[in-house]
């Protein structure tokens, strides 16, 4: 079996499938993983930010991700609405498989944070999520479903 995707990859693809943004778009809400391009202004970027130690016996991981939303110049309301949409899409999701990995659940820790306006005046907001997921493959670990 293939190694599991990074949680940020899976989540970005899921957000894309739910119409929250488009991966690599040149205009509109562009979705990215681990790198925020300078354009377009409207950007949703998903980062892997560690999380808690994975279970050493069972196939159960506790990674965390951060979703960072950058809006249009002086577009705070639009940026906030978009990150709210991200929150509503991910938080409390029912069990689902993304990229071959079984996602048990997604929680949010803290709520939406306003970070700053960048140099051109684009608002940046973030939200952090706790993921429970069961990879389909890991050499030394066992599945719960036995």
């Amino acid at each position: 079996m293939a190694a599991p995707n990074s949680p940020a990859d899976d989540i970005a693809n899921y957000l894309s499938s739910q119409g929250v943004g488009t991966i690599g778009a040149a205009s509109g809400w562009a979705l990215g993983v681990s790198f925020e391009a300078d354009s377009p202004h409207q950007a949703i970027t998903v980062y892997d930010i560690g999380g808690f130690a994975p279970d050493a016996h069972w196939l159960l991981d506790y990674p965390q991700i951060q979703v960072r939303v950058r809006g249009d110049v002086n577009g705070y309301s639009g940026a906030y609405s978009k990150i709210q949409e991200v929150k509503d899409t991910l938080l409390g999701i029912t069990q689902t498989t993304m990229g071959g990995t079984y996602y048990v659940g997604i929680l949010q820790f803290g709520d939406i944070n306003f970070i700053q306006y960048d140099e051109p005046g684009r608002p940046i907001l973030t939200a952090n999520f706790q993921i429970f997921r069961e990879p389909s493959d890991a050499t030394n670990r066992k599945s719960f479903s036995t």
Partner: protein
Amino acid sequence: MSIAAFNKVVTIRSTTASTNHELPATNCTLTLAGDLLDDTDMSSTGFRSKTIGLQDWSLAAPSNYDVSNTALTVARQAWQNRSRVFMQYLPNGTAGFSGYAYVETYTLSGDVGGLETVDINLQADSALSTVGST
């Protein structure tokens, strides 16, 4: 040599089955106990003396709940049927202890911010045997 606890395997099966199933335990405790009786008498010389009476053992296995896990089904059905199970507690995954027990409690719970869990408690109904080299 020390043993990393993540190597531990805890299995159960019904007494009519031959296949052991691993409990999805995230932390497991096997307690060996005995009644400590005071047998001090008039011949004792200044100090109390004790002896061990009946011995007992129990197993506590907090586990993650999974509807497709066979061991959890075995435990729940044993509780429902008031029947015994055969359990093995293997600290290094291959050697340890075994015995027959009843499922005293099977407690499902889960916080909204975490995973659903089930706490299983077994109470001995036999001597505790050794498995392999302990």
